[in-house]
């Protein structure tokens, strides 16, 4: 067993290193090799802390220690940054070298793990051997891939602007002289301070492979991340069902549920990373007070809103685990606690129906900053909430009742009940982006369902499996519909469902190689969607990218429609409290600007409105008024095709 694992590991390492040293393009290898490598690299990055925990700290593969060891990545970033500053070296080259070192280190740790971990040796025959059981997680994963991911996701699709936004931060971290501890320190793409760059230090090595395209990595990341989450959920379920089959059912249910705005495991974002680390902590066998404190700090570093939210639940889980035993004070008063909690829930839901929400009543400043309310309100919030698990409620309701009546409740089951309760309560209290707080709902519901079904001793037992299968099938259909609804926002109107538009590729390639090679040393101003394309493809600064101020959008649009000197100066000299004009600005005339008509000028109206693809017929022309105007001003053309014309900042007049 050990020999086979290490042989495979050696071959993977050789392949991985070979791929790392291949040039970014023209590798001549089949596309499948790129995808395999992307999956391999993502697995290496996201599982390295587990191996470090096992080998260096003798912990489990899942738990608080591996979660804390994710801090290895920010440490690497700081070291790399210091080296690049001290030796005046190219940060991106150092980062790439680091990825290679991480890969080698991972294989080294795996080798050691096979030698020191009893699960690979004596304990292999044990019933609940994690190593032996983990491959089974491929079953729920296969359900997710076959019925959700493959039918819905187009190959190489990027279905979250967030990936581009966070890549822009990674790009800036590589070129900025300052240490970038928060995204706002090095990027102007963030309206609020929502997190540190902890997430970005993990995202960076995933993106820093030589031979892979951004969209390939993200596409595979959306595939691998649910697999790892499925493994965690499997382990948590195994702790109280003690049955492999039921834990697999829980795992399958947990990863298929799609909750809009929360994206529990479907997308790799700061909030989902926080949840992933939180699951690590919940699955821990040896939770201590110190670990809970350190874990809470980590969660907060990961996400300033979801972090504290999950940290509170972690503390509650710890307290339950420590103090809840049959006959304990907590158990004696559990009936009263449930009653009071139920009353609070009823009160919150009723005031929500009558129009109260934290967002509307207490967060006016935030709403003003965002320019929009972010939540659904009665009755639409009810349908949204119910469709999270869809018609699975038919079983979940009796399952919840049964769980509450259950005399001996394992801590994990209590955690699941608590998660459902807290998520529901916060959703109906409705602070901004309330749907995000449903992040653990699907996972918790799956545990409660499985607890219920596995506790029934029906005749025959096969029947319960049939019921579970029906439940999984129904969840797949609901999740499919929910995921599809989400994807409509990336529908380009030409059959493609992707945040990346093919027409942008040439410009993106040009800009990604342009830094330092041309006289293009300026901030690039264009329509907001084009700006996020620019920011994610290169290290050029933009005018707030997708969050370009509404007034500036209008100024720019007016300039394109009927250019004159006053309007030009209004655009390059635009200033707000937050926005300071750069000394040097390059105007980028885009097909999105020329394709804007009365029918699709919506992107001018709000900071959240963007124009993904105005239509295939919109093209820029060198005869357009803005081009003639800019030429008359003496601006050279740095890039020109039928989609874009990029003007130089300096004039030759």
């Amino acid at each position, binding site marked *: 067993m050990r020999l086979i694992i290490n042989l495979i590991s050696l071959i993977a390492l050789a392949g991985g290193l070979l791929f790392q040293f291949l040039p970014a393009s023209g590798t001549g290898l089949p596309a499948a090799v790129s995808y395999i490598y992307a999956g391999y690299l993502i697995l290496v990055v996201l599982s390295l802390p587990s191996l470090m925990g096992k080998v260096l700290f003798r912990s489990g593969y899942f738990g608080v220690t591996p979660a804390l060891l994710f801090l290895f990545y920010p440490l690497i970033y700081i070291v790399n940054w210091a080296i690049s500053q001290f030796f005046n070296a190219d940060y991106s080259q150092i980062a790439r070298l680091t990825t290679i070192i991480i890969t080698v280190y991972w294989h080294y740790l795996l080798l050691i793990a096979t030698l020191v971990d009893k699960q690979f040796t004596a304990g292999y025959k044990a019933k609940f051997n994690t190593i032996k059981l983990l491959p089974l997680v491929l079953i729920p994963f296969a359900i997710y891939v076959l019925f959700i991911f493959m039918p819905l996701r187009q190959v190489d699709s990027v279905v979250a602007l967030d990936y581009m936004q966070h890549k822009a931060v990674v790009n800036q971290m590589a070129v900025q002289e300052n240490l970038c501890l928060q995204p706002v320190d090095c990027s102007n793409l963030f309206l609020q301070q929502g997190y540190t760059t902890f997430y970005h230090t993990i995202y960076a090595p995933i993106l820093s492979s030589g031979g892979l395209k951004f969209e390939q990595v993200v596409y595979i990341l959306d595939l691998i991340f649910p697999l790892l989450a499925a493994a965690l959920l499997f382990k948590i379920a195994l702790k109280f069902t003690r049955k492999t089959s039921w834990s697999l059912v829980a795992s399958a249910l947990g990863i298929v549920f799609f909750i809009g705005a929360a994206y529990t495991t479907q997308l790799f974002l700061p909030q989902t990373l926080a949840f992933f680390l939180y699951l690590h902590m919940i699955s821990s066998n040896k939770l201590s007070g110190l670990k809970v404190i350190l874990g809470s700090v980590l969660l907060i570093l990961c996400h300033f809103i979801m972090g504290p939210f999950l940290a509170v639940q972690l503390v509650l889980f710890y307290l339950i685990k420590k103090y809840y035993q049959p006959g304990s004070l907590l158990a004696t008063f559990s009936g009263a606690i449930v009653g009071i909690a139920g009353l609070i829930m009823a009160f919150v839901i009723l005031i929500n129906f009558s129009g109260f929400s934290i967002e509307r009543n207490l967060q006016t400043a935030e709403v003003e900053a965002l320019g929009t*309310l972010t939540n659904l309100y009665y009755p639409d919030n009810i349908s949204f909430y119910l469709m999270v698990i869809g018609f699975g409620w038919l079983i979940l309701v009796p399952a919840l009742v049964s769980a509450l009546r259950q005399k001996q409740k394992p801590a994990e089951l209590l955690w699941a009940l608590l998660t459902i309760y807290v998520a529901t309560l916060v959703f109906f209290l409705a602070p901004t982006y309330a749907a995000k707080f449903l992040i653990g709902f699907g996972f918790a519901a799956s545990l409660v369902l499985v607890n219920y079904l596995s506790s029934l001793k029906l005749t025959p037992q096969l029947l319960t499996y049939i019921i*579970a299968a029906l439940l999984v099938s129904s969840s797949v*259909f609901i999740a499919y519909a929910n995921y599809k609804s989400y994807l409509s926002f990336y529908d380009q109107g030409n059959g493609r469902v992707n945040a990346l538009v093919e027409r942008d590729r040439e410009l993106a390639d040009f800009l990604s190689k342009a830094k330092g090679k041309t006289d293009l040393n300026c901030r690039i101003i264009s329509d907001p969607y084009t700006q996020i394309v620019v920011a994610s493809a290169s290290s050029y600064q933009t005018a707030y990218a997708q969050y370009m101020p509404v007034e500036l959008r209008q100024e720019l649009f007016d300039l394109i429609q009927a250019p004159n000197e006053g309007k030009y100066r209004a655009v390059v000299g635009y200033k707000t409290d937050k926005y300071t004009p750069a000394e040097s600005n390059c105007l980028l005339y885009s097909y999105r600007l020329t394709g804007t008509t009365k029918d699709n000028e919506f992107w001018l109206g709000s900071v959240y409105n963007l124009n993904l693809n105005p239509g295939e017929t919109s093209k820029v022309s060198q005869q357009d008024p803005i081009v003639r105007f800019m030429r008359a001003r003496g601006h050279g053309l740095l890039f020109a095709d039928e989609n874009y014309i990029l003007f130089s900042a300096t004039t030759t007049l």
Partner: protein
Amino acid sequence: MLIKKISYSIILLLFAGLSLALSLVYWSRSVSYQDFLTYFSNNSQVIDLKGPANYLSISAVNDQLAAKVGSGYKPFEQNTRYDEQIAGIDFGQLNRSYTQISQSQALSRRAIMTRFDGQSIKLSYSLRPLSAELNDAETYKIIIGSALELEEIQLSENGKRVDFAVGPCTVIIEPEQQEVRFTVQKDIPRAVVVSTPWQGAASGSNTELDLIMTINCK
């Protein structure tokens, strides 16, 4: 005991079966028949469900209020990142419709989708000035957009109901306060301008104008 177990099993089986059946119905409403075929033919393309380009765009001149109703996906027309929270509501028989409302800035204007039944949809707007200083009339533009032909606009003034037809739909706007005045801006084709004098706003910013828009489609 055995009978109890069996009956319990049957009830659960029915529940699980019902869950699957209802999920199938829900799923089939979200995908077309072509999608269904695609789904089982391993074609990973998501079918573009864009139907007739019927949609109604309602936006405010002051960039505060916007709503779109229609059939066919119109991605990125509104709140890009959080749309899924406010979109995806069926528009009666045009059940591939795309409906969403961009909420207003500064809580001063709210756009709340109340209800639709079958072929009609009702939108309620509460509009109030941003601050007490805004005494002047604010102007809201309701744009009837895209491929829909505006066949007729009937207007009345001083708080009375406004009816007009847009393609197969009749649009009714009912103001709930007497101060409201509707006017037509004739130089903007296919647009209705709702001009609101905001009487009494100087004493506070709580004066609200409630508009109820009902859209009935044939």
